């Protein structure tokens, strides 16, 4: 299966800007389906960005983050060619991980 994580990390030499888009339903648990049955909550709880053995950004998410979540942040350091490891875990314990090269 292809990764659920799409990432673009670009370094200016001083700062690395990271944009990530994840495929995930992010069901809140407040929505009913066509039959009137509640769709159970299913959302990413933690999203971690690791560079050079150190977490550079950690997102704690609730159910109010939009479907197929997007997030953008920047950190100092990071060179072209460096690895950036991105992992998420959701409320059902499902996970995905990918490693991207900083461009």
């Amino acid at each position, binding site marked *: *299966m*292809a*990764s*659920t*994580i*799409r*990432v*673009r990390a670009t370094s200016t030499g001083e*700062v690395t800007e990271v*944009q*990530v*888009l994840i*495929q995930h339903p*992010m069901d*809140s648990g*407040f*929505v009913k389906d066509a039959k009137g049955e509640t*769709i159970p909550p299913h959302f990413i*709880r*933690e999203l*971690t960005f*690791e560079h050079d053995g*150190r*977490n*550079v*950004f*950690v*997102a*704690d*998410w*609730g*159910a*109010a*983050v*939009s*479907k*197929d*979540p*997007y*997030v*953008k*942040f*920047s*950190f*100092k*350091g990071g060179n072209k060619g460096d690895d950036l*490891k991105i*992992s998420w*875990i959701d409320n059902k314990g499902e*996970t*995905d*991980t*990918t*490693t*991207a090269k900083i461009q």
Partner: protein
Amino acid sequence: MTITHSDFPATRRLILIGAGAIALTGLGIMSVGMAPALAAANDTYPEDAFKQKGAADAIKSLYGRTAEPSDKVKLDAPEIAENGAVVPISVSTTLADVTSIAFLASENPNALAAVYRIPPGTLPNVANRLKMAKTCDVIVIVEAGGKLYSATKEVKVTVGGCGG
């Protein structure tokens, strides 16, 4: 699975990382070990805070104190969100020593939407997309130097984000 193309022009250019990357990272074992530099109160998923109904309770649960409004916190959100399911919201601040940034929507079933942990060296600028049930205040809390600063903006929601 299908790839959902975003209405964000920038993200459309994102590279699709193939299955090869997954193989390289083995079984995808999570690395959730926090850097020791992070404060103790700042390194676990704030389960209780996400369960609180109102914004004030969520902030209290998350930080144990209240925030003061600051013009150094710049909150970018639309005046009117036609689709409450996808409301682009971003924040930046000139405050120093930022350790976390939290996003809340006051009238959502659970006000707290997201908390971002900002370790030293990471810039205090975050953009994301949130669901909003109806027209209400978006509140951003910036934790900096052990104090809390906030910015608030009302976003009018035409179609609520709870309809899926």
